[in-house]
């Protein structure tokens, strides 16, 4: 069965990079441009993995994670946040909001795949 990934990021190039990398690994990748778009996706279906940026217009990543965790489709799904080395506090805040793990930006494809495999097997 094809596994699905939701990538929530206001940057289309990041979404494209994630899609390019994970589609090559056999995932189906769906994009959302901000937290609120992401949340409506999560309300509609259950993904095997969610990757979200933290700094986004309309709804930021923390609010998105909290919202996703509160919906039945979002409970138990691994949610990975994209963070930067320079903001360790963001990691803690994201974890508190319910994130499963994080990927430090910048990341390369290999690193992304390693972390995705770690979380979804």
């Amino acid at each position: 069965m094809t596994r699905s990934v939701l990538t929530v990021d206001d940057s289309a190039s990041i979404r494209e990079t994630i899609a390019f990398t994970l589609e090559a690994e056999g995932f189906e990748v769906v994009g959302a441009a901000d937290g609120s778009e992401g949340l409506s996706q999560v309300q509609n279906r259950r993904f095997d993995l969610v990757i979200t940026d933290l700094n986004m217009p309309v709804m930021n990543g923390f609010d998105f994670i909290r919202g996703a965790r509160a919906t039945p489709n979002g409970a138990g799904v691994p949610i990975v946040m994209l963070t930067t080395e320079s903001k360790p506090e963001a990691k803690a805040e994201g974890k508190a909001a319910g994130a499963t793990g994080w990927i430090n930006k910048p990341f390369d494809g290999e690193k992304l795949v390693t972390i995705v495999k770690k979380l979804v097997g």
Partner: protein
Amino acid sequence: MSDTATTMFVQEARDLLEGLEDMLLDLEADPRPEKVDAVFRALHTIKGSGAMFGFDDLSQFTHHFEDAFDKVREGRLAVDGRLVDLSLRARDLMRSLLEDAEGARTREAEARAVLIRATADLTGPGTQADRATSAQAAAPPKEATRFDIFFRPAPDDLINGMRPDLLIEEIGALGPISVALDLGRVPPLDDLDPTRCWLGWHMSLTTSQGEDALRDVFIFADEAELTITPHTAMAAPEPDSPAPDDPAPARDAAVTRGGGSIRVESQRLDDMMDRLGELVIVQARLDQISRRIGDPMLETVVEEIDRLVTGLRDTTLSTRMLPIEMVFGKFRRVVRDLSGELEKTVALVTEGGETEIDKSVIDKLSEPLVHMIRNAIDHGIDDAETRRKAGKPAGGTVRLSATQEGGEVLITIADDGRGLDADAIRARAVERGLIEEAAVLSEAELHQLIFAPGFSTAKELTSISGRGVGMDAVKTTVDALRGQIQVASTAGRGTAITLRLPVSLAIIDGLLVRLGDAVYVIPLSSVEECVELDLAERHRESGRTMLQIRETLVPFLDLADIFNQPASTEPRRRVVIVRADGARLGLVVDDILGQNQTVIKTLSVFHRDVAGFAGATILGDGAVALILDVAVMIRTALEARDTPSVRLRRQAR
């Protein structure tokens, strides 16, 4: 990284920089938090994505301004004309770094430095940017270390998407591991919230990775309870070489080099093993009693004891383990002497000497291995002239290798000699009355004949391999160690004899089977599968009744026949398919009761000569169960036409 994504990034960054100019100008007039956020986000994206798409200069440069606006967001820096001015100039520079990365790098390096300095003046010292990121990880230890790991996820971790199973798999990929579940915190059913995690895992891992690598696996589990305790590897004792830096070695327990290991009399280890065996038996009784009582609190304690006993068993067994190198080492001399005596050039290659095996197995292994190596050199490897004619290098090679496979150690002695001569074996076996002239035997069955008592095909007996008692003795020793022998031989290419030996002798995993009121144990390592008798079709082939198990025909024995019991009337009987020495046999039993840890007790002197049993064990309810000797059962079944019980009696003589 895809080109599409890079193109998209450049376009995206262009748009962001375009917007940034307006935003910055707005900001000066109206520094509301949303506007600051928008600027920060734009810079953040350019920095983050820039680094990903190879715009390192752009990313690093942007970082300083992202940092400045982060301070603004936190209220630590005010928006004023100077900041906006610097930011606008920075924005122009970012633009040229984006469009003309190469040119801008050289041309505007100085301008960048000026801008960064000016921003630093504005924002003050000690920004995140200057901090070193990850500390140098400690170098991993080279030798394998055993780690005891305890991992208990935080209750919310399951909801938050953690998969403890994947983490344990990931840890397991680092080396051999045993895992035990800790159910101590699981609340009574009424209070159990199934979305929360109550479980803990005790893991015992042997790996050459360092502790940091283990912690990395759990990097996301920062709320979880995690303890990692390394154990200093127990070094193999070196009986003949006291540590050079140890001035006064004590007689019984001397500290050897490295400081982490002690030397212990092997008798003490044997005693420890005996007591552990008793403990395992008592534990099985306790388990049975607890199940009868059905008290959940008692069950929890019993499970905990079970886990501890299993851990203790593994630790105790591992203290008795020695690298097989200790016997391999002796053979260099044997090979050298022999090749001189027989005027053959033979090289000995050893592999897998670090494979560990129980000390008591090692002690008994030396002699059979010497026999086999002698045989390989004497009968297997031809003289240089014959080898040259066969297109082989003049010098022969004997390869001695060891590997571990589950609970067994495989030791292979392979030579590149002439291989076994199936016709000669057959002729000799007929001559010796081992088989009938018309007997139909497979190649594997013919090869097994070399282990028959009094068999030798060497035309002239040499002083080296003696009178053909060698392989017979090997077989006896391997049987006594509950091992198996497999022979693979290609005429003209060589022979490989593989000994499959249990890693440990004292405790095995057994399959409990029932026949009438009696319970028997079949060593699990010999069991291939279990099927229902009714489902297996019967066929007759060369005078024997066989069971068809999927595509293959398997000979079978009814245990009731062997033990002279009245024919069973049980409606749904089972067949346990066992394998030894390359042959398969179905054993028909009344029922299969389950699996258990079996502590092997030797039979008393009165019963020792009863063939078909490898020993006895004590079950949880205190009853004694006999352990079947699968190799003997198979030999019995494959022999000629007497009734099984008569054959067993003959075997015993």
